[in-house]
């Protein structure tokens, strides 16, 4: 099936009334949770996961994807109006969006974020189609060694490229890998870390883990925080219209942001949050007026918003063509696919064209819908920000409980969510990334299986990872990432110590006198 045939076929799938309804529902729900600070796309998707057991696999995937990219639109609203990012991806948008709102240009800032998000998504779809076909072909050369090496590289990249301490992120990845070992070992049938609990034979429930880490932990963290901000002013439609020179200023940042986001989204490990930060840094670096950034510069909104939406779309490339989720949301998406009996991988484009192309077409429809509806509906979204968090979180808690309970009717799982939530809250407080833990958890069994298989085929010779060129490439990239991060961390530590020593030195002299 070539691209045009594929797209036509995809449209026929995505335009089925039931699929269309779920796609639009997902996109709107995504915008809703994106707008509201305190609930992210992650929590919303986990909440919806159990419900997807009850609907067709196309509808389920299209709905979850809608939540994902819908949230990218909504996240900017709270960033601009309250200086409180609705989603991590839109944190950068606060830098220039909020100053614009203070200058009375909130409408223009909102319009910029919407149109940039839309352009980013649409170009992202083009990149997705081109890359997915190419990667699916390359992936037919992949064996177990390549898969294992690539997943390990993805995890290391996710932990070291992103913000935060690499040691902490890596520790979370490894902890996730360990949690992934719980349950019956596929190869030997041995029960690992079950401690005689029959509920643990199938391993830790993905939904329970995600809900604890992202639902419960975030609710606890936000009960006090989210209620502190005052409601924003009303926005009229006329305020949204930008002037021509403002429109012209968006084009170049949007193009650059899309390209950047498209690239980093498709790399397993790095995702839309990193893309939006990189795009902001790039725009400021090449701008002729870098001093205007942080004071209401349109390029500071247009670039990152285009980048995170483009990355959100291309994140599906490794997930669908290799079966390797690049970020935790994709990990959940992969979980949903597996629940519906679909194993993503190089064969998926041919084996399940309805699924692949239907998803691609729904991205286009959903984004168009978001653009057309969100501009007129902006008043409604703004008034959503008036809902205090205390009205929402008790409902979220009930939905978490019922969602987990519905998966297999076990109250054991709810107790598990409570425990994981408490630990997750404490970990997040100490700035350990729960997303890394989830990523490790999902990839763990896949890595172990492929590692075993690769070494079995090579008769226990680890050189198999060096002798095969593609695997060797991944191994070298992993080693380079680890080496680079270590050097950076050591030199930063040394600089910090020197600073402390310099600050302490005059004090010591004072002590002596």
């Amino acid at each position, binding site marked *: 099936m070539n691209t045009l045939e594929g797209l036509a076929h995809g449209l026929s799938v995505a335009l089925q009334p039931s699929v269309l309804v779920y796609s639009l529902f997902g996109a709107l729900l995504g915008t809703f949770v994106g707008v509201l600070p305190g609930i992210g796309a992650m929590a919303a998707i986990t909440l919806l996961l159990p419900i997807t057991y009850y609907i067709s696999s196309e509808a389920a995937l299209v709905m979850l994807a809608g939540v994902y990219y819908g949230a990218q639109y909504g996240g900017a609203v709270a960033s601009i109006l309250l200086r409180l990012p609705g989603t991590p991806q839109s944190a950068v948008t606060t830098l220039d969006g909020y100053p614009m709102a203070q200058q009375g240009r909130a409408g223009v800032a909102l319009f910029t974020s919407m149109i940039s998000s839309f352009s980013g998504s649409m170009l992202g779809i083009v990149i997705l189609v081109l890359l997915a076909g190419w990667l699916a072909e390359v992936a037919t050369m992949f064996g177990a060694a390549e898969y294992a090496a690539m997943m390990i590289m993805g995890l290391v990249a996710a932990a070291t490229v992103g913000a935060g301490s690499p040691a902490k992120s890596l520790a979370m990845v490894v902890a996730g890998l360990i949690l992934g*070992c719980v349950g019956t070992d596929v190869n030997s049938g041995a029960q*690992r*870390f079950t401690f005689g609990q029959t509920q643990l034979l199938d391993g830790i429930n993905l939904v329970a883990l995600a809900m604890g880490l992202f639902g*419960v932990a975030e609710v606890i963290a936000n009960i006090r925080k989210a209620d502190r901000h005052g409601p924003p002013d009303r926005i009229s439609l006329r305020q949204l219209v930008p002037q021509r020179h403002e429109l012209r200023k968006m084009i170049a940042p949007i193009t650059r942001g899309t390209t950047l986001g498209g690239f980093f989204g498709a790399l397993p490990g790095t995702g839309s949050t990193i893309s939006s930060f990189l795009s902001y840094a790039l725009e400021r670096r090449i701008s002729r007026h870098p001093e205007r950034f942080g004071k209401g510069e349109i390029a500071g909104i247009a670039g990152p918003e285009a980048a995170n939406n483009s990355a959100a779309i291309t994140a599906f490339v490794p997930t669908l063509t290799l079966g390797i989720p690049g970020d935790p949301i994709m990990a959940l998406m992969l979980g949903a696919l597996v629940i519906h009996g679909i194993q993503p991988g190089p064969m998926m484009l041919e084996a399940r064209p309805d699924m692949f192309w239907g998803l691609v077409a729904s991205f286009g429809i959903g984004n168009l819908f978001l653009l057309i509806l969100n501009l007129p509906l902006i008043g409604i979204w703004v008034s959503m920000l008036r809902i205090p968090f205390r009205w929402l979180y*008790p409902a979220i808690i*009930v*939905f978490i409980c019922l969602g987990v309970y519905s998966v297999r009717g076990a109250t054991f799982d709810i107790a598990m*969510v409570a425990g994981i939530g408490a630990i997750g*809250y404490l970990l997040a407080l*100490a700035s350990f990334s729960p997303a890394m833990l989830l990523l490790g958890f999902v990839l763990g069994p896949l890595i172990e299986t492929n590692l075993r298989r690769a070494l079995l085929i090579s008769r226990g010779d680890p050189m198999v990872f060096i002798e095969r060129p593609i695997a060797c490439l991944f191994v070298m990239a992993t080693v380079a990432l680890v080496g680079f991060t270590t050097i950076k961390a050591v030199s930063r530590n040394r600089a910090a110590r020197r600073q402390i020593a310099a600050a302490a030195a005059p004090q010591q002299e004072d002590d002596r006198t």
Partner: protein
Amino acid sequence: MQRDYQDLLWGAILALFGLAVAAYAAAHYEIGSLRRMGPGFFPVVLGVILTALGGVITVSAWSRAGVPQPFAWREGMGVILSLVVFAVLMPRLGIVATTALTTLISSSVAPRAGVSWRLVLCAAVTLLTWAVFVLALDMTIPVWPWSR
């Protein structure tokens, strides 16, 4: 001397956890060889790596000042308690009564005190839950205490 006690503690916890995993797996599961890995191989390797990473976190936190984080213990207790209450009561009381109770408990730790808004919220959430999970999704769960 300033120390990042939070990271110090978590680094140590993670290192000990890694050590425990590695030791338990080594004692209980077969390690096998590189050619034919046993079920213990992967957990032992992971446990050792986690121990090392926990050590790195602890050591680097030793000579660094930490930023004390405000700890929402009241909110945390309220949320965890409402989850546990739900888990215990759900199979016995059914969805309607359990939802109502869970909502009342969890809203008690909200930044605004008061009973009337919580009763309204309780009624709304209970109705919504019933409409979504029983009416729309037709989930097979007990609805009332006597409908088991």
